[in-house]
Each structure stands twice: as structure tokens, then as C-alpha cells.
């Protein structure tokens, strides 16, 4: 006969209402231990793992977001700087271009003026020449004409001295006209 006897069927046996039963205590402690380790393994471990993972993920995305923000700010600052530089550059270019255009237009105007002056001068010289030529031609013609007219008017011979004087006077007066 072993230490554990055959199971006794005790169908009609109830423990007292307030009882301390060794078997119940033993089984309860075993059940409690099973429950503790079961809950630890089936509930706490997986859920806490997931919570930790989520925490890690959240931390990671927060860090990433901060990094991205810092990067964006840096880029923004860089762009602002570039934009300022570009504006300055364009203003400079515009200034230069304006100045060059001004210079160029001044040059052109000056050249045009000079050319115009040269042309005027040339024209004036030519005109002068033409005038002189016309004057001398006119003088020659007029003197002939005057002699002829005089001959016709006077129809007489005057002495050559008077003749010459009259012609000269006439030529002078004609010459004054021009």
C-alpha cells in the first residue's frame, strides 16, 4: 500500500461552512501560481512587448520628425539666403545694365550729334562754295548784262573812265546785295 491510498468516493460529504482544508489550500496555491504565470506569459508579456514597441516607434517618429523639421528649417534659411543673394545680384545686374545702356545711349547720341554736326558743316561748306560760284557766275553775267543794258540805255559812247567807274559801282552794289 503506497503513501497515496485509493481515492475515496465521498459523495455525501460536505466540508463545514467555515473550514480550513489542506487540499483546497494546496490546490488553490497551485492554481494561483498557474494563473500568475499564465497571465504573465499570455497577457502581460505580449501586451507589454507591444506597448514597448509602440513606444519605440513613437519615439523614433518623434525623433525623425524633429530631424525633418530641423532640416526643413535649415533648407528654408538657406533658400532665404540664396533668395537675398539672388535679389542683390539681379539688382546689381539691373544697375549695371542701366548704366551701360545709359552710356551706350549717350555714346550713340553723341556720335549722332557729331555726325550731324559734320554733315551740317559739310553742307554749309558746300553751300558756301555753291554760293560763291553762283555769285561769281552772277557777277560775270551781271557785268555783261550791265554793259549791254548800259549800252542799250545810253546808246552812246561814254568815256572809258566813266564807263569803268560805273561798272565798278554797279558791281559793288550788286556785290553788297549778296
Amino acid at each position: 500500500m503506497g503513501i497515496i491510498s485509493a481515492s475515496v468516493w465521498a459523495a455525501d460529504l460536505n466540508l463545514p461552512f467555515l473550514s480550513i482544508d489542506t487540499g483546497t489550500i494546496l490546490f488553490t496555491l497551485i492554481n494561483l501560481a498557474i494563473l500568475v504565470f499564465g497571465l504573465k506569459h499570455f497577457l502581460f508579456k505580449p501586451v507589454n512587448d507591444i506597448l514597448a514597441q509602440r513606444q519605440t516607434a513613437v519615439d523614433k517618429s518623434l525623433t525623425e520628425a524633429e530631424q525633418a523639421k530641423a532640416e526643413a528649417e535649415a533648407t528654408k534659411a538657406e533658400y532665404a539666403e540664396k533668395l537675398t543673394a539672388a535679389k542683390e545680384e539681379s539688382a546689381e545686374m539691373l544697375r549695371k545694365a542701366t548704366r551701360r545702356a545709359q552710356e551706350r545711349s549717350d555714346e550713340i547720341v553723341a556720335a549722332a550729334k557729331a555726325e550731324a554736326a559734320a554733315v551740317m558743316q559739310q553742307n554749309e561748306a558746300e553751300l558756301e562754295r555753291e554760293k560763291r560760284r553762283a555769285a561769281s557766275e552772277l557777277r560775270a553775267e551781271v557785268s555783261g548784262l550791265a554793259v549791254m543794258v548800259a549800252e542799250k540805255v545810253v546808246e552812246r559812247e561814254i568815256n572809258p573812265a566813266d564807263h569803268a567807274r560805273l561798272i565798278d559801282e554797279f558791281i559793288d552794289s550788286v556785290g553788297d546785295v549778296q
Partner: protein
Amino acid sequence: MLVMAIPAFLRGPTDPTVTGPHVITSWKLGPLTINLTETVVLEWIVVAFILGLAFFLTRNLRVRGVSKRQAVAEMAVEAITNLVRDTMGRRWLWFTPYIAAVFCFSIFGSLISLFGVRAVTSDFSVLLSWAAVTFLVITWTKIRYGGIGGYLKGFADPMPVMLPINILSEVATPAAMALRHFGNIAGGGIIMMLVYYGLANASHMIGLDIAIFDVGIPAVLSLYFDLFSDFMQAFIFIMLTMVFVSNAGPAEEEASAS
């Protein structure tokens, strides 16, 4: 037989008896008698149910796109973890599964009475076992933080003449916890049984063979004695466990913990 059985059932309880749990089978282990009682079988059901629930709730856990089940599991874990942290402090977080286990065991062990069986927690041996664990943890904590000398010296504090009283108070802690829980649940069960019995008798008195008053009316009382009381006792039990255990260690701890 069947024709007789149905009227007997419908007549309601006629002979209320207050007994302990039924002994299903027992073994002789040397001088000890190991009983397998009704309570233990119900404990198996309760433990299997709780573990099954935990297993079910933690299927397909995900970091994102949390299912309702997972949300429930996370809420439960976080709630009990926060409770332990707030009551006991960070260094006791490892104790959380035990607190959760006792809480679930107590709640479901009490609520199982809704199915018409004895509540697991209306057996004093069960509460005594849990309280004994609390007592052991308290003692272990005192020895751990005060040394065995400090622990023994604590009994002669503030003066040696207090020794019996200190021993008594040390034992009274788990005994009071166990008795409080047992008394509330077992007492509630007896009251409910009497209510069913009384209402059945009232039905018979007005000439009804069927215990018509037992339908619906006891449910109102059951709300308190079965639902509220079960929850309260489970909560009180774990709160007392946490408070006694954490008080057994040095009071401060936030400094070392954080």
C-alpha cells in the same frame, strides 16, 4: 422521474442548508487527507476561463491598427499596471501579474456563483491561501529590507512587552483580509439563498405551486450581493495586499526609483 423533477425544480428551494464545499474525492497522503472539493474544480474552470480570455485577447497584437480585443487587453494591462505603480511605487512593478491574478481570480471566482454554483471565494481555504501569499510577501519584504535581525527586532518594537501584540497583529493582517473577503461573499451568498427561499415560500403561501416570486425580484438584490460586492471585495483584497506589502518596505522610494 422527469415528470417529478420539473415540478420540484419549479417549486424553488425548499430546504436551505448552509454547508461548506462538497468533497468530490479525497486521498490519504500519510497523515494528511487531501480533499478534492467542488471549490477546486470551480477554480480550474475559473483559471481556464481567465487564461483563455487572456489568450484570446492577445491574439494578433499589432503596433498599429489596434483591434478592439487588443485595445481591451492593453487597457486592462495598463490599468492594473498604473494601479500597482501608483499604490506601491515603481520598484514593485514586477508584482503586477500577481495582483492581476488575484484580482481576476477573485472577481471571476465570485461571479461564477451567477451560474448557480458555489462561489470559489465563499470557501475560506481559498482566501486563506491568497492571504498567506500576501503574508509571505510581507515577511519576505521586511527581511529583505531590514535583514532577519531587523525583522525579528521589529516584534519587540517599541518595547519587548509588546511582543505578543505584535505577533498577533502580524497574523491578524492576512487573517482579517481572508475573513473579510470570505464573510462578504459567503454572507452575500447566504442572503441570496434566503431571499430565494423566502420568496419561494411566499409564492407557496398565496397558493402558487411554482415559485413565481423568485423570478426577477432577487435580481435587484443580486446586483449588490453578487456584482457590486464581488467587485468591491476583489478590489479591497488587492488594495490591502498592495498597501501592506509596500508598507513592509522602506517608506521612501521615489528617490531611488527615479
